[in-house]
């Protein structure tokens, strides 16, 4: 186990972060290609919208897993966390853009949906919560903000939960997949709770 962890850590140190950006964003051109060629089913707009949203959730989960992985397994992928976070935001932006321009299309309806439909409101809130995170995902901001930077980036937890609720709420009936995503998000957040040390009498 320890040997494997060392191997992973060693390999992670050798991979340049730009490679991670490219790998994480590779699904985008692939999805667009599929959208034009029938690979996303008979409703490519919904297909693209859902795929992008699911990628955003997968990546936010990956980002949330990085700290527990180091703490509990000793696997250190911290240097890729910014790439994972910015890639997540990219998918959220694309998901939002597809919804705006290809799905709803009608401007008067877009704002009505955002304020009147709770699942849209929640998804939009997750997007808004991620904007300051994306804007401060650079070395200059970390230096400038100091300890406040860590506090600010706890917004990730909120964005992840909102994203999970958004998915549960938008499907018809009770479906398994959104509940699986939500359980993983809640589980990863629970791992961060610092339980009070039990006092034995």
């Amino acid at each position, binding site marked *: 186990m320890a040997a494997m962890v060392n191997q992973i850590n060693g390999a992670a140190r050798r991979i340049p972060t730009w490679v991670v950006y490219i790998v994480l964003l590779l699904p985008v051109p692939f999805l667009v290609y599929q*959208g*034009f060629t029938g690979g996303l*089913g*008979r*409703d*490519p*707009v*919904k297909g*693209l919208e859902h795929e992008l949203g699911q990628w955003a959730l997968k990546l936010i989960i990956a980002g949330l897993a990085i700290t527990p992985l180091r703490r509990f397994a000793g696997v250190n992928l911290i240097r890729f966390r910014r790439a994972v976070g910015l890639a997540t935001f990219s998918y959220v932006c694309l998901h939002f853009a597809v919804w705006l321009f*290809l*799905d*709803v*299309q*009608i401007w008067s*309806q877009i704002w*009505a*949906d955002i304020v*009147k*439909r*709770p*699942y849209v409101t929640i998804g939009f809130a997750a997007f808004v919560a991620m904007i300051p995170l994306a804007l401060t995902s650079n070395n200059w901001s970390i230096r400038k903000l100091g300890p406040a930077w860590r506090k600010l980036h706890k917004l990730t937890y909120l964005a992840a939960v909102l994203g999970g609720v958004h998915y549960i*709420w*938008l*499907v*018809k*009936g*009770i*479906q*398994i997949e959104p509940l699986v995503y939500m359980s993983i998000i809640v589980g990863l957040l629970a791992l961060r709770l610092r339980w009070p040390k039990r006092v034995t009498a």
Partner: protein
Amino acid sequence: GLVGMAGGARAQDALEPNAWEDITQYNNYYEFGTAKEDPAKYASALTTHPWTVKIDGMVDKPADYAMEDILKSMTIEERIYRFRCVEAWSMVVPWNGFELADLLNMAGVQSGAKYVAFETALRPDEMPGVRYPVLDWPYVEGLRLDEAMHPLTIMATGIYGKDIPNQNGAPMRLVVPWKYGFKSIKSIVRITLTDQEPPTSWNKANAREYGFYSNVNPEVSHPRWSQASERPLGGGLFARRVPTLMFNGYGEEVASLYEGMDLKANF
């Protein structure tokens, strides 16, 4: 014969049917899974021969009717209808089928009957989706008797002149073109005439979102999305939204059924 229907003729004139692939590869049939592609993938497991339909309740001739006997006494015709899903997408389907009224008259509707209840087959061995409690299985639906007897209401047994594929509700499914698609219950095994408003699956699952009537109505929003417009399927990535029509464009034929009713309360 492939004869159009006089009453709906005007609404049908301009309709261009969707491709066979749109109609048969993009389905909501949760007994086979909740993804749109699931029914096309898994519904071939459904045994549709032999098939019997129990017609019971307030009828003169309650019985288990064999599908082939039903087909022998019905006249199959083509009906090209708009199909509007409650999820705000739509298509145009060239159904083949017969009027539900003919089937109900065959069984003999008794005078006290006010509603028709329908039930879909429940076959856990053939339907992978029913392992999950997405809905309270079996799927059930219902119509008021006058809606059921309306000449636009049909039992579909075919599409584009071919046998209806399993994913579209073989061997026989209801089509009520002025209501959201989920009212048009698939793979029917039981039809019951009753004097009570029957329970319906989506209404049981979420009464706030899905009413008994579920008439297509651009003025009554679904609590989670607007119903004012729809995306017609088959237009690719850049298909434009179009306004949704009252009663899905069949108002001239069916609006009189709801005269004096508050359609916001009876959604």
